[in-house]
Every structure is written in C-alpha cells, then in structure tokens.
C-alpha cells in the first residue's frame, strides 16, 4: 500500500457473532484532508474507527494507519493519532488541567513539554479561564472543547473524532466545526463521523456514506450530488415581468430542464449552477430581476435519493 494515504483499509470487515458490523470496507484518506464518515446509527462507523486504532480486532482485511498496522503496532499508531470518542468522558473530580496532565503522562511527555502543550491546548480551545475548575462543572460544549484539547496534547498527525457534534446545539456544533477547520490548516488529517449529514457537510473535503457496514459512496459533496442526483440544482428566481415570456425565456437556457412559476417566483431545475444564465435570460426577456438563489444539494438529499434507489433496486 502506498503512503499517499494516511489511512487505508482493504476489505476490512468486522463480524459480531453473525452480525456484520463492517463489511469489506475500502477506505482511503489522504494527508491533510477532512474526511466525513457519514451514516445512520448502527451503520458501522464506530466499529470502523475502533479498528483503525487497534482497539478492536478486525475479523478480516487490512488496515494501515500512517503506514503502521494498528493490530501489531498499536503504540506507534496511538502515539500519532488522536482519538475523540463519542460521548467523551473525563475524570469529573479532577480539573481540566489535571485531566490533560494525565493524558500527557500516558503519552510519556516530559513534564516541561507537557505543561507547555497543556497551556497551549487550553488556550486554543478557550478554556484557560476554567483550566483549574473541576470538569464536573463543565457544560457539554466545554467538554467537547476539552476533548479536542486532550487530543492536541500528543500533537497528532491524524485526529479521529466520533460524532463530535452530538449533543451540541446547532450553533455550538457550528462553532465546533469551525475550530476543526483550523486544525486542518495546520496539516492535521481529520476523520470525523456523524449521523447528522447536514451538520458536517460544510466542513468535510470528502465524505463516505455508510450504510449497513458498507461505504456506499464517497467523494466530495458536489461529486456525490452529480453522481446521485445528477441535474438537480434548484435555482429560485424572483422577478417582475410577463410570466409567460419569462418562463419561455428561461426554458430556452441550455441546462435548465424545468421551470415553475408561483407569482413572481420561478423555481428552476438545472443541471448545474446556472444563476448567471438565468439572470441574463430574465433581463433579456424584459423582466426586472429582484432576487436569485441557488439551493445546493444537501447530503441529506443525496442520502435519501441514493438509498431510495438502492431499496428500489433490491426490491425489484
């Protein structure tokens, strides 16, 4: 296997007495990207992550993480890969700083280095004011940030986060994901899992859609959209003018397949982002353009669309 990939699996499978939790998974994650492992609960995301870290033994298949085999060289893998489990827990009776100090000692860091890194990590996650407070007083969002600080202590090359936005309110989740984006800028490769597709779609460079232990689809969100939904960009045009003329003009634009009017609002289905062309058509037909919006396909749409098709195929 080549080392262009930070994480690579081939035919990776995990069976739990008959139940196939992960089925023949081929996963390739490039250095420096944010990869989203997306899928509903029970689709095998956590199991996959545990196998990547050597915390669960694969039933079959190969895993390479940073060119190490997690089953045989777990210490090398775990020294370089930060893992933030779902529903992360801390020692409540200890302070944030003490919790991180324990992590530093488990990583064998000398005290001076540890102190420095703890300070930097707490600062970065905005937890310096509460560094010496007991973790039992922390909110869910603070714990999540402490989780990231904890992972940063070992200065990892790769960070794996399992459902990092679970339990956060939408704004908290958003802020959290922005933080993750900053980590990527430092060259850290990030693998995160989620069952909330829309939440992570903005932050991931590429995603893999999980379904019953299999990775059904992978690629960037735009790629997936093209693959699954094809020509399904929704453009909304708001314009004054003669409705019939406007509809006709819009329908003539190459790439636009369907136009529906509701008063002054025109719903357009196109095979790509044809906002400029639509605007031009409206103006040329004598209309006065008021607003223009494009609705990018969301992962939820893709997911729903794809698995409807799959279900259909398997039923017929």
């Amino acid at each position, binding site marked *: 296997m080549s080392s262009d990939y930070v994480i690579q699996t081939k035919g990776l499978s995990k069976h739990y007495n008959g139940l196939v939790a992960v089925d023949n998974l081929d996963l390739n994650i490039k250095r420096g990207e944010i990869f989203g492992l997306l899928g509903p609960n029970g689709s095998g995301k956590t199991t996959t992550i545990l196998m990547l870290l050597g915390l669960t033994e694969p039933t079959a298949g190969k895993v390479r993480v940073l060119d190490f085999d997690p089953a045989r060289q777990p210490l090398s893998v775990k020294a370089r890969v930060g893992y933030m489990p779902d529903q992360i*827990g801390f020692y409540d009776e200890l302070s944030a700083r003490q919790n991180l100090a324990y992590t530093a000692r488990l990583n064998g860091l000398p005290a001076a280095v540890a102190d420095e890194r703890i300070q930097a990590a707490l600062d970065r996650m905005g937890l310096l004011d509460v560094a010496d407070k007991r973790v039992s007083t922390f909110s869910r969002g603070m714990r999540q940030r402490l*989780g990231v600080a904890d992972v940063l202590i*070992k200065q990892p090359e790769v960070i794996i986060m399992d459902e990092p936005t679970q339990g956060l309110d939408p704004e908290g989740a958003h802020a959290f994901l922005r933080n993750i984006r900053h980590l990527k800028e430092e060259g850290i490769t990030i693998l995160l899992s989620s069952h909330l597709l829309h939440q992570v779609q903005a932050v991931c460079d590429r995603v893999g859609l999980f379904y019953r232990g299999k990775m059904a689809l992978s690629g960037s969100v735009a790629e997936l959209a093209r693959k699954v939904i094809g020509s399904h960009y929704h453009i909304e045009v708001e314009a004054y003018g003669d409705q019939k003329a406007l509809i006709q003009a819009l329908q003539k634009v190459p790439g636009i397949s369907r136009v529906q009017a509701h008063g002054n609002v025109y719903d357009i289905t196109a095979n790509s982002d044809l906002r400029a062309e639509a605007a031009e058509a409206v103006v040329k037909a004598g209309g006065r353009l008021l607003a223009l919006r494009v609705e990018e396909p969301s992962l939820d749409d893709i997911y729903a669309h794809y698995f409807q098709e799959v279900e259909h195929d398997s039923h017929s």
Partner: protein
Amino acid sequence: MTATVKSQPVRQREGSPWTGMWAVMFKEMADHLTSARMRILEILILLTAVATVYAAMQDIRSSIGSDPFLFLKLFTLSRDPLPAFVGFLVFLVPLVAIALAFDAINGEFHRRTMSRVLAQPIYRDALLMGKFLAGFLTLALVLTTIWLLIIGLGLIGLGVPPSGAEVARMLGFLLATIFYGGFWLALAMVFSIVSRQSATAALASIATWLFFTVFWPMLAGLATQMLRPIRLGLPQEIIAQTQLQMTLSRFSPNTLYSETILAFLNPTLRSLGFVLPIQLEGAVLGTPLPLAQSLLLIWPQFTGLIAATILLFAAGYVLFQRQEIRA
C-alpha cells in the same frame, strides 16, 4: 534430526506492555489517598487499632519482664468485650481492599474515560497492572502506618523496645496482612471487570467475603461430617475428620491468613494441624519456636494466598484483554 522450524505467525506486540503503567499507578494512588471512601476506612482502622491496643496494653503491663514476646501480644490479646486487633483485621482488610478495587475497571466505563485512556499509547496491561499496584500500595501504606502506630503506642505504653525477633515477626505479620489484602483486591478487580455496574461488583465482592467468612466454615463442617462420620469413636476416625475439616477450611483465604498470622504472632505455636502426642516428644511445651521454624510451618499457607492472588489477577487480565472497550 533437523526439524524445519516453520516461522510461526507470532503476534509479537510492539514495545513494552508496561508503558504508561507508572502514570496510571500514580494517578490512581493519588485518587485513592484523597478519596472520602478511603478516609472513612482509615479512620475505622485507626479507631480499632487504638482501642484494641489500649485494651491489650492493660493486660500486658502486668507481665512485663516475664514474657519475651510482649509486643506481639499488642496485636493478639483480647479483652472483653473487644476482640484482638488481628480479629478485626480479618474483616477490615477485605473491606478496605474491596473498597479500593470494586469500581476499578467498570468505573472507567461508567465515566466514559476508558476509550480515551486506551487511545493513548499504552496497552491494557499497563492500565490493569497500574490500577492493581496502586490499590496494593495504598493498602500497604495504610496498613504500614497503622502498624507503626501500634508499635509506637507499644513503645510508649510498655516502655521497652521490641527485640529483633519480635520486629521480624511483626514484619512477617505485616507482609501477610498486605498480601491478604492483595487477594481481596484482585477479587474485587475481577468483579469490576466482569460487571459493568460498580454496585453489582461491590455486592459480589462482599458476598464472596461473606461466603468465606460465614458459610464456608459451616459448609466445611457439614461436608466433613458427611464424608468422614464418626461411627465408632475411634481415634483414627477423629483424626481423619479433623484433617478433612482443616483441609477444606484452607480453601478459604481467611483461614490461610488466620493461620499465617497465628504462626507469626504466636511463637509457641508448633503445629497448625492435629497434634499427636508423638509429635510433641522432645519439645518443651511453651518454648517459642525460632522464626525460621514458624515460617516453615505456614509457608504453604502464605504462598497459597499469594498464588490465589496471582491466579485471580491472571483471570482478570484475560477477561479484560478480551473485553469490548466501547462504552
């Protein structure tokens, strides 16, 4: 013959299994030493020690000068209504050990820290061993402190220093007590691995303790009477019955411990079994045995206790290695 040795697919693990063990141990020990749970137990032992030693001292004072093993009596003399200090230890030590370990592993699951800790570059071995060592050292620390306190009280109260032989015997007693605690520590730890609920693990540990303290002696008695009944009242029958009863009762850690400390603290004890008059021939009754002889007497008990501890730890180790770590 030249056998072609096939290179077996040995799953050689990288690095030392003990990486990180000291980090775990120091954290756990700090937790133990500051926990309210331990405070309560320490105070309990302390009160017991002071009360029993004070009571014992009243009796010992009268025999200063006549008994060469005065200090040992501090631990063994009872005075109504108080039992001797060692009598309390048989109960208290398991209690402390269980309190130290019943939530060792399931507590990490409960707090959801297990996967985070095991995602650090350590093996599970280090976590388990670190936790066991921390419990063991805490136990040793507590017991040694109490032990020193009792000797200190003895020095003040009796006004004479202990002899070398006494010190050696008291040290043996201390060691045996620590290892007795080690057995219960390992047991509670196994339950903390088997059961995801701390309360269940604590209950199971206490139940085992109760079984060995209360029910096993009764069961041993019953089994003996059934297996070796005394029909004719012959001496052989009586000997056979007593021997079986002793053998059975030695399956209990409490018996092993009691016999061990009895030999350490009672130098005149010559045999733990059924004593035939012929065995006493040439022995002047009441003369103390040298330490080496006493040690020889309870060597099987002492090593048995340690072996049981190691077995329990090994069982816990295997169970923990195979455990699914997802919370």
